[in-house]
């Protein structure tokens, strides 16, 4: 059964379509990652689902409640963390959790039981009686997540939960999100990093300019985009021209920018040796080559044929 259902959702800012007819559904206890560049419509989708914005068309149902008809029902069912930790700077970690517990109208007894449990799980016990002002970015984020699930909502929206975090805090946050999933919470997560979506989500929807342009499991997407990217830096532009001709003749998909060629592969030895042997055979001079994971840019390039535009929010 789908807990989140979005049908032909539309939103305009002025005349500009920000969401241009989005369809999505998230089954209970699973996570959908909404992957896309800045300005693609990720945050707008979350804002509509959490009743902060009104849709201009279509409908969205969360936990059985329509976001426009029954905002209160929706609000009782969800936990939300925005792009910035929205917790009170001057209160301590514990006081913040108390505040949110009381605002969710939980029983005092339940709040008392839940707070130490959450602090322990999020490794914040030692910082519990310090003002949030003194917390690091990673700690704030963790407290924000704790506040968001204090009332154990069936649905959680995570809007770019690891943006601006250092790699260690990012891993810690991922671990917390995985644990949320183990407790059967339905999660909609937005991210700009393919790796994050890949690591966490059951399903990935790729959004660009207000449209879903690809959807599937991360394996589906990777299979289409290529599990690894082979990046070859050629000696000069003349070599680059010959190389692209040869790749084209051999029906190998690639992107080229000046003398850098980028080829999606599945990453296994035979496919790599094939390509490199082809270069060798045609005496194409190579400076360096490397193998890397595909990025959002690669997915973007694959589906749209051009690089991500940097949108300013």
């Amino acid at each position, binding site marked *: 059964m789908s807990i989140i259902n979005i049908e032909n959702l539309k939103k305009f*800012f002025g005349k500009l379509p920000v969401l241009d007819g989005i369809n999505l559904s998230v089954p209970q206890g699973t996570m959908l990652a909404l992957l896309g560049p800045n300005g693609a419509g990720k945050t707008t989708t979350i*804002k509509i689902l*959490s*009743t*902060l*914005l*009104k849709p*201009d*068309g*279509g*409908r969205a149902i969360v936990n*059985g409640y*329509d976001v*426009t*008809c*029954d905002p*209160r*029902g929706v*609000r*009782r069912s*969800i936990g*939300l963390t*925005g*792009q*910035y*930790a*929205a*917790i*009170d*700077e*001057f*209160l301590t970690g514990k*006081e913040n959790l108390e*505040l*949110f517990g*009381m*605002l*969710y*109208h939980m029983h005092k007894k339940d709040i008392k039981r839940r707070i130490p449990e959450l602090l322990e799980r999020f490794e914040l016990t030692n910082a519990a009686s310090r*003002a949030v002002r003194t917390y690091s970015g990673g700690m704030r984020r963790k407290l924000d997540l704790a506040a968001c699930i204090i009332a154990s909502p069936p649905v959680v929206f995570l809007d770019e939960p690891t943006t601006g975090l250092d790699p260690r805090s990012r891993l810690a946050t991922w671990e917390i999100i995985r644990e949320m999933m183990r407790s059967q919470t339905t999660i909609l997560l937005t991210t700009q990093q393919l790796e994050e979506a890949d690591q966490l989500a059951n399903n990935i929807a790729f959004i660009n300019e207000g449209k879903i342009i690809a959807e599937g499991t991360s394996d589906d997407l990777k299979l289409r985009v290529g599990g690894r990217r082979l990046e070859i830096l050629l000696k000069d532009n003349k070599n680059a021209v010959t190389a692209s001709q040869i790749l084209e003749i051999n029906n190998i998909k690639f992107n080229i920018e000046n003398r850098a060629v980028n080829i999606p592969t599945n990453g296994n030895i035979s496919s790599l040796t094939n390509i490199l042997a082809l270069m060798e055979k045609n005496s194409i001079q190579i400076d360096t080559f490397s193998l890397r994971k595909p990025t959002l840019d690669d997915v973007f390039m694959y589906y749209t044929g051009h690089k991500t535009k940097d949108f300013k929010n």
Partner: protein
Amino acid sequence: MMSLCITLDTKQKISKTNLHQDNTKPIRIMSNDFTRIEVCIKPKEPHLFTDLLTDIWVLTRRSLLHIIKNIDQILGLTIQPIMFMLLFYFVFSGAIEVGDVDYLSFLLPGILVQSLAFGSLYTSLSVATDLQRGITDRLKSLPINSTASITGHVLADLVRNLIQGIILLFTSFFLGFNPSAGVKEWLIIIALSAVFTFAISWLSAIMGLAAKTIESVNWLGFIVIFPLTFASAAFVPTETMPFGLRQFAQNQPVTHIIEAIRALLLGMETGNHIKMSLIWSLIIIAISVPITTILFKQHGRN
């Protein structure tokens, strides 16, 4: 509790007037172009009044905690009234002629009302900070009446101003201020100050919502409150002011409340000042509360 949303084909547009003529109460129009209507199958769960009181209390408690947890607020709260009192007293007392009373007695009500007005600006600052930090959005996603967050800031202003007023009075007693007011007069003074604070705090909530940044909140506050407190009977008798300014100063709300408190403290005739300051405060409240609520609900919704 459950309701059903129906999106109509654009060809089937219904007009607003039709809906109203039919007097079909359970139907609500959900979109600007009247293509989307809502039919409530069961009546919506009402906002419980006790829930609202809980929300207001929880969020007021949060704003009150800010008073003791924010060092800036503690400093502003204690140092500002003492400094105003000392500076105005020592700088102006030799130069300004205020008639029968000594300058300290004349000055205190002015400074008191000025610090009440400035103290009420904390609401604008708190409201703008909540907006900027994403706390407002977060609160709006909770199953609460989120305007309670503003009510919380407003009520915290009352407590803050009470503390500030007490510090100010003790400073003036130290300087030799000796008012003749009895218990009844003091109670009226406290009530007038509370209603005035309440009014200015709601006005200040509008400024907080209207300003885009925390910096512009400060400017907006100064632009509104400075003229009101200085072009008043706070520091000099209004009779000394030029034509135009004098008429403004004599009839604006801040002057009325200063004159009322001054008369109550010094045992003089209060005239219509108590009545006028109450009327002014109530007018400001009656206008500001609905505007604040509308702005708050509209904010960021497009």
